[in-house]
């Protein structure tokens, strides 16, 4: 059902532009990884704190507020580079299990990050029980690691 959409994506100039160059795909991929490092650092900073690890002498809300800008920057870099990567090989991705795992886990991770996790991380420290914070931190790490591993695995299919 979605195949016609992926076929249409293949016709877009951006993907064709990327394919037309030997260097563009690897360079965009590298920047995608730089975004991952930034996203990883800013997400793990808060998630480890939710687990009671890392910068445990600071309030979760303080870390979450400070990390937010960099998490959004990392996400923006990943989306802006991810789209041309996708458009350069949509049919291959349509038949890639790793891609489908990534593209279903990603919206879940995003929704989780901007609803439950944001509420728990920015809440007054008194309100969030330790158990709930730990659960949110662990879930967030699990979701993002799944997205990253599935993303890397696309290259092996």
């Amino acid at each position, binding site marked *: 059902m979605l195949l016609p959409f992926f076929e249409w994506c293949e016709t877009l100039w951006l993907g064709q532009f990327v394919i037309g160059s030997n260097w563009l795909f*690897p360079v965009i991929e590298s920047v995608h990884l*730089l975004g*991952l*490092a930034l996203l990883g650092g800013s997400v793990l900073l808060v998630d480890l704190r939710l687990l009671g690890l890392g910068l445990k002498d600071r309030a979760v809300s303080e870390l979450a507020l400070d990390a937010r800008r*960099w998490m959004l920057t990392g996400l923006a870099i990943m989306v802006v580079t991810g789209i041309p990567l996708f458009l350069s090989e949509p049919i291959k991705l349509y038949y890639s299990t790793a891609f489908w795992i990534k593209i279903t886990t990603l919206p879940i991770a995003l929704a989780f990050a901007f609803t439950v996790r944001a509420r728990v991380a920015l809440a007054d420290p008194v309100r969030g029980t330790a158990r709930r914070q730990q659960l949110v931190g662990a879930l967030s790490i699990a979701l993002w690691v799944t997205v*990253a591993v599935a993303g*890397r695995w696309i290259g*092996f299919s």
Partner: protein
Amino acid sequence: MSLLAFCEWLDSTDWSTALHESMFMYPIVESTHVVALMLFVGFATILDLRLLGLTLKRVPVSQVAERLLPWTVAGFIIMVITGVLLFYAIPVRTYQSIFFRAKLIFLILAGLNVWFFHTRIFTRIAEWDLALITPKAVRMAGLASLVLWAAIIIAGRMIAYNWFDCDIQPQSAFVNWAAGCVVPLPTP
């Protein structure tokens, strides 16, 4: 024994072939390398941004370092172990990759930057621990670290591409020299 001969010997070992051809082990090692990158380069970046005064401004630099460095070190150890395994899976080609060689040079520079930071800058941390605008040397160390780790990631990603592989000839004399290619003389 030359390094090339050593890599050829590595290449000839059964475990190297097994890892290279494994359906799951090679991707698992590669994925672990990438997940460890999120932790290691991620936290190195957070520390660098703090040195530049761009995040965690109210947290003393010493506290950021004390709490995050153990995680950063753990991430680095995982990166080295998985990185060595990735090299071991494809030793000769990787040894003769100009991107791998560039990555090693950047790694050495990043190591020197860490050494410089810890021996010359971190020892005087009391003077600027709480500073929003850190001394210039501190900012330079943070910036150098950001640039070097970015270069290491880019060079590392490029190892996968074979534009400059020794078995793809002709290459420019510079590439053959930098990659240490053993180019057979053209047969008459």
